């Protein structure tokens, strides 16, 4: 025992001259700052949306007035049969799509994880590609393939004399396209569950005398049920917030869903901002309820394995049947990846979409760069690409800094109010992009000289929309840094900021860089919230594509779709290369 320790033990230690009382307010100020930023980004727009749903006042004409707030306004809208119809259509389309997605995703997971199907790894990564295709592009591609009159599939079928006709401009069409594009969500959840299951759980059933099918029915599926439910609800939630697919496939058949209905309300003249806010609130309530169910499914009955080791999943030897499963997997990839890409390519390069017969499809004189030339002749095209990049960079920088600050505060400090910061950060999970768009519209349209019509409103809306995902990604990478690494720096005499600068940031850099590039990608492909926030000077890529589509020029639409897909492919490859797979995880949670 040395003297110093003794004196400390006796409570007689001298006061350290560096122990500063004056900095006690600092954590409080920091918490207040973060809360102010979050209120500005999330609470204020959401509140304005709620107020909008409860008033009858037109914010553009009258500014904001709190005088005639009444639940009656909201109830009138909710009782409107058009709203109920749109809600019902949404539930049918997303419910049907989810059933298709679960069927495909679960089968795909089982084939990839549990069988000896050849080329499994290749199939698995190809099967994830639909995740990266923007919904609008997917919708356009399938419209080219499956429109009742001019669809390529119908054309080929009729020229071949086959009595098969498809009509994707229908509820069935929406269900089909939703289902095949969102199957990867179910796949990811269930494949992980199948992979992490202790194989001896199934072996025990076999030893007990159960047949392979009995084992699957009584052990395997019940055990991965929480994962199936979680994946199912997530895909449902994401479908519910999608605008692009129902806009392209549902609108021609006059089947409005909630998202397309909300946009239609704001596009009317005069715009029905109050009704749009009310419907957006309904969409938010439905989504919030489903998110709650999904969180319960994830946390409630998860069967964690007893032994904390990695398992080698048992691969079922399918014998010659493995070529059947390979064939089915190839069919799926052909349908979701190759067929739509081919359709876009044909449409983009063919001078006229009129195709007389099948040989004409291969007549090379019919193909040219004409649509690309026309597209780039329109100055708006390049301008929108440039605008998207600009907004993307803004989003990545603001979002990256804010997410790091929040992530660090939540995971690493004892800052007062960090629980509430955490909770507010999570709110946007339950708000579809389109609803964020309406909320930001409401928050700023009535303030002349405010953010409305600027790039900032787009960037801030994107930051708010993707905040839960980026904060989560950054928190994960921060939590992987051992606390003692920081404590060692403090012991060495560094202050808090010095430690963050010299230890935390350098070590967490891969995570931060990945988070920022991911934000950039998400921002440039976002359509839902952009729809309500762009102005003529801030037109972004996704909205411009919708413009071309609605303008009716399918050649230019397809050409621009290909350009966007190529751009995204390059960016995602770079991100994946930078972060080893973080982009995949990120796009997954946000659609």
């Amino acid at each position, binding site marked *: 025992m040395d003297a110093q320790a003794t004196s400390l033990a006796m409570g007689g230690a001298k006061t350290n001259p560096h122990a500063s009382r004056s900095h006690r307010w600092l954590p409080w100020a920091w918490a207040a700052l973060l809360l102010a930023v979050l209120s500005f980004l999330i609470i204020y727009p959401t509140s304005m949306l709620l107020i909008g749903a409860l008033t009858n006042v037109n914010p553009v004409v009258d500014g904001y007035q709190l005088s005639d707030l009444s639940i009656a306004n909201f109830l009138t809208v909710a009782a409107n049969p058009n709203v109920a119809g749109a809600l019902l259509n949404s539930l049918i389309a997303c419910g049907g799509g989810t059933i298709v997605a679960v069927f495909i995703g679960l089968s795909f997971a089982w084939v990839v994880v549990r069988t000896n199907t050849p080329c499994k790894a290749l199939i698995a990564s190809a099967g994830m590609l639909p995740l990266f295709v923007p919904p609008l592009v997917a919708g356009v591609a399938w419209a080219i393939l499956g429109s009742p009159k001019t669809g390529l599939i119908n054309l080929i079928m009729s020229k071949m004399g086959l009595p098969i006709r498809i009509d994707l401009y229908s509820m069935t069409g929406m269900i089909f396209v939703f289902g095949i594009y969102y199957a990867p969500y179910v796949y990811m959840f269930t494949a992980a569950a199948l992979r992490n299951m*202790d194989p*001896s*759980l199934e*072996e*025990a*059933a*076999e*030893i*007990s*005398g*159960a*047949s392979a099918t*009995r084992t699957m029915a*009584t*052990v395997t599926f*019940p*055990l991965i*049920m929480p994962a199936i439910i979680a994946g199912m609800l997530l895909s449902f939630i994401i479908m519910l917030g999608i605008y692009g697919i129902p806009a392209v496939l549902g609108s021609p058949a006059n089947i409005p869903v909630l998202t397309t209905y909300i946009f239609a309300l704001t596009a009317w003249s005069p715009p029905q901002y109050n009704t749009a806010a009310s419907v957006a609130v309904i969409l938010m309530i439905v989504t919030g309820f489903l998110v709650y169910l999904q969180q319960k499914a994830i946390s409630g*009955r998860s*069967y964690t*394995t*007893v*032994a904390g080791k990695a398992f080698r999943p048992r691969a079922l030897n399918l014998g010659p049947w493995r070529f059947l499963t390979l064939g089915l997997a190839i069919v799926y990839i052909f349908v979701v990846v190759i067929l739509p890409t081919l359709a876009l390519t044909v449409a983009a390069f063919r001078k006229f979409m009129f195709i007389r017969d099948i040989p004409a499809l291969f007549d090379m004189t019919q193909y040219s760069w004409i649509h690309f030339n026309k597209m780039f002749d329109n100055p708006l095209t390049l301008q929108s690409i440039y605008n998207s990049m600009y907004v993307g960079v803004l989003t990545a920088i603001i979002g990256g800094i804010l997410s790091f600050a929040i992530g660090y505060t939540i995971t690493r400090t004892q800052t007062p109010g960090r629980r509430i910061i955490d909770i507010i950060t999570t709110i946007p999970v339950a708000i579809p992009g389109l609803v964020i768009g309406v909320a930001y519209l409401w928050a700023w349209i009535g303030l002349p000289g405010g953010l409305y019509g600027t790039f900032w409103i787009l960037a801030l809306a994107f930051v708010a929309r993707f905040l839960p995902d980026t904060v989560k990604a950054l928190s994960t990478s921060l939590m992987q840094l051992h606390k003692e690494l920081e404590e060692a720096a403090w012991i060495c005499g560094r202050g808090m900021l010095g430690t963050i600068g010299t230890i935390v940031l350098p070590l967490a850099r891969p995570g931060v860089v990945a988070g920022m590039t991911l934000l950039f990608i998400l921002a440039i492909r976002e359509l839902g919230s952009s729809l309500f926030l762009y102005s003529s000077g801030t037109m972004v890529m996704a909205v411009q594509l919708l413009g071309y589509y609605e303008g009716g020029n399918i050649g230019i639409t397809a050409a621009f779709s290909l350009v966007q897909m190529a751009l995204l492919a390059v960016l995602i490859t770079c991100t994946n290369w930078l972060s080893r797979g973080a982009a995949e995880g990120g796009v997954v949670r946000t659609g």
Partner: protein
Amino acid sequence: MSSELRVEQLRKVFTTGKPPVAKAAVDDVSFTIAAGEIVVLLGPSGCGKTTTLRCVAGLEHPTSGRIVIGGTMYTDPQAGVLVPPRSRNLGMVFQSYAVWPHMTVRQNVAYPLKARGTPRAELNKAVAQALDLVELGSYADRPVTQLSGGQMQRVALARSMVYQPQILLLDEPLSNLDAQLRLRLRDDLRRIIKRVGLTALYVTHDQTEAVVLGDRIGVMRDGKLLQLDTPSEIYNRPADLFVAGFTGASNVIDGTVVSRDGAFGVIAVGANERLTARLGDGVSEGSAVKVALRPDNVGLSPVGDGPNRFKVRVASRHYQGTQTVYELTLAGATIEALEVGSAARHDVDSEIVVALPPEICWAYAV
């Protein structure tokens, strides 16, 4: 009910790595377990003991060899015989328990009977009996996720015995439990298996577990069964240096055989010392040997006169409370000796006399 198990020339070759290398995980293993006998396969990880067990279960397909249970051929790859696990009527307890977390205790235990289509009345009776046997009768309707590790393992045991299997297979069933529970359950396990009279094949890497549980112990290394014998034979007459070392004979003295007289021989060790030891097979005059000896068999300051008395220096002393470990310098080698009791009687650097009883000094050819 319980049957004899015969494993003949079992061989399992895995092909792993890039470029693919074939490695025999189980290499020509043969043994027989009599009905009602408990045999423990003991060895370090990767020695092939679990693969052997999984081959018996039918979960792993051997490359060659035969597995005969109760006179019926269950595995014979050469003849194309490979009965699937579900038709073998074996019980198995897994290292990770493998109790199904989505079922209650009762549902877990009833599962094998349901798969067999056992009538309800009979099923209920058998489940109740099995649960009473493992003393979990009052937990029947709990979800298994609410049980402790030891309780889960007992559910797994009840589940594996409820249908009166021909043979019970246990794959390191205690390795996930904490030390105290392991000791208790170890004794319980043997008692329960013996009461039911089951033939059991038990796999572990823990020597004390093997000694307490097994009627016979088979020591394995690199896919080979080195010795299969009663615990006291394994401990007192290990077949080779590895078995000796693995069961705790950690002292090794190098020497050369001077003369051989029946089972014993005189070995020159160190500068000019002579040591009498039991000679292993293939050891003759002039061969270099390693003499293995357990630290607890080193007699400290023996009374009277006898063979193998040596003057040694105490190099270091490690007091461990209830026992003391000394490092002694003997004929140039360092050996450990154990003194039981809480009093350490010898000081560092003192010279003492030790006795190494010849019948438990084993010399093996190098």
